[in-house]
């Protein structure tokens, strides 16, 4: 076949259109395998973007049948005056910042501790156990958290035994604890999982560096400080910047499931705001405006962070 084709082209050069068609025909099965998936992605990922036009219309349950009217920036003007929106914005930022700080420090610490373990079996056991909560659903995790933090639960029991508190604390019903509870529960769920990337980075540190440090008289803590930490620096910085790109994502499930009326001022996030206005009150236009605001800020943060990460990669890290 190849020979036949080349003889033909030698006789009479094919027009570029014919060449393209021939190539396309040769790849018909590749297209058969990829174009349906492309169409699927177009429908489920790109078509909804067209729904953003509703952010500029007064769309709700009553206008959706006969067609909504264009109202310009009306939805956004309403949004920026709405107290609940700014409440959600504040809570989203606060909780994602807490998650970022708690999550990063805890997983780096766990990775360092695991890196110092010499018994393989023990290391594997710790890893197996700490990865487990990552695979449990948030519904299960919040249920377990409820068992732990109820007023007569184990957490209050231990704290009272240790004399840290005198009377049981109402963890789930007081707003000022809510952000920190979310932070702690997220650490419990994800610390093992998030440490994987640091553990694998540490495993790739040249062991001769540790030997050299030992010969130079460095103790264990000095080795951690001067070999391990510099070894994970670039991974740490890149992940940190990437996480800054996700600051608008505080998670949705945990706040929605753990929140209740008493702590509403601290549990309501932008996602919950969108859900309450969009699905429960059918104010689609306003909810889409809020969602669009969140997406656009998220994209700007993400690309900004990517940009910074690339610059740092080139200039300071490599």
């Amino acid at each position, binding site marked *: 076949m190849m020979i036949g084709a080349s003889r033909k082209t030698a006789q009479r050069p094919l027009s570029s259109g014919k060449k393209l068609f021939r190539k396309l025909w040769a790849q018909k*099965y590749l297209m058969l395998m990829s174009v349906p998936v492309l169409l699927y992605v177009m429908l489920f990922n790109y078509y909804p973007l067209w729904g953003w036009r509703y952010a500029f219309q007064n769309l709700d349950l009553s206008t959706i049948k006969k067609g909504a009217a264009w109202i310009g920036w009306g939805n956004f003007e309403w949004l920026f005056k709405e107290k609940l929106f700014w409440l959600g914005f504040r809570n989203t930022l606060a909780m994602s910042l807490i998650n970022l700080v708690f999550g990063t420090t805890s997983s780096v610490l766990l990775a360092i501790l695991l890196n110092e373990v010499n018994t393989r079996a023990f290391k594997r056991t710790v890893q197996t*156990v700490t990865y487990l909560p990552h695979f*449990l*659903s948030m*519904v299960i995790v919040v249920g377990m958290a409820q068992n732990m933090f109820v007023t007569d639960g184990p957490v209050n*029991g231990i704290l009272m035994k240790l004399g840290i508190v005198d009377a049981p604390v109402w963890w789930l019903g007081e707003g000022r604890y809510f952000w920190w509870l979310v932070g702690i529960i997220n650490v419990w769920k994800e610390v093992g999982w998030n440490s994987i990337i640091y553990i694998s980075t540490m495993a790739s540190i040249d062991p001769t560096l540790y030997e050299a440090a030992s010969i130079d008289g460095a103790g264990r803590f000095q080795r951690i400080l001067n070999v391990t930490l510099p070894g994970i620096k670039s991974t740490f910085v890149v992940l940190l910047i990437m996480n800054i790109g996700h600051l608008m994502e505080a998670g949705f499930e945990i706040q929605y499931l753990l929140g209740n009326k008493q702590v509403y001022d601290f549990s309501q996030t932008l996602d919950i705001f969108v859900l309450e206005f969009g699905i429960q009150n059918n104010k689609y236009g306003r909810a889409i405006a809020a969602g669009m605001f969140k997406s656009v800020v998220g994209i700007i943060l993400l690309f900004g962070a990517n940009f910074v990460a690339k610059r740092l990669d080139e200039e300071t890290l490599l």
Partner: protein
Amino acid sequence: MTAVPQEKRKPKRRDIVFPLVNGFILCVLMFITLFPVLNTVAISFNDGIDAVRGGIGLWPRVFSAEAYRTLLSDKLTYNAFGISVARTVITTLLNIFFTSMLAFALSRKEYILRKFITLAVVLTMYVNAGLIPNFLLIHRTLKLSKSFWVYIIPTMFSCFNMIVIRTYIIGLPDALVESARIDGANDLRIFWQIIFPLCTPVLATVALFVAVGSWNQWFDTQLYNGSKKYLHTLQYLLKMKLATSMNTTNAANTSVDALVNSGATKSTPVTVRCAITVVSALPILIVYPFLQRYFVTGMVLGGVKG
């Protein structure tokens, strides 16, 4: 000469102390990780009225399987379990099929549309229209609400997994595809008979993630199938139980006496909720140890290249 052993002894003592402290910290960490899980199991096997008093640790105080009896006497529990299993199995199979198929097509360097489709698909990881536009598409445009297929159709493909699988395929020797092509096999056969079987390790990883994600999902049930009792999943049953107990646990604990006096049932919302938790977490706990070796390699693969 005498100075040498002294010098040696000092770091040696440290070498014993640090691993001990480190091991102790990690043991405490494992305990903190496992305690809530075991505590939930203990509460689920405790007598309902007794459990309301609180203070149960790792072992039931008054043993009773009443919560499970209540749970298993309800036809909806079996139904929800069936729906959960069905959605997980079907979603995983279809998702693996379509995702790996695209991964193969986009791994072929000679493919004309490779760059365009890759860009179009990868961009979806960054651009998300948000909850309401997706809801309007599925609920109003496609009218998938109130049907089982709303669990399947929107989750048949995942971009991140596609990249992981594609990286794996690119790592396979090119000669496999070339020699098969010379033998006259077309791309469909090459994919299905040569590449797909060779991808088993990475496909196992990806399948685990897809399956866990599907099994753990409850929000789509709430959005689209909340009114259809026979389409509820286990996670959604649990979510409803959680929502009711979230409101009652905060209303103080004075109801113990009322519960004791009523004395009708021995299972209470708390123990039943814990029993559902155990039932819905059980499949993951069973599968988890076997698949553990797969997901770490897969995670590293995806983390490095993704």
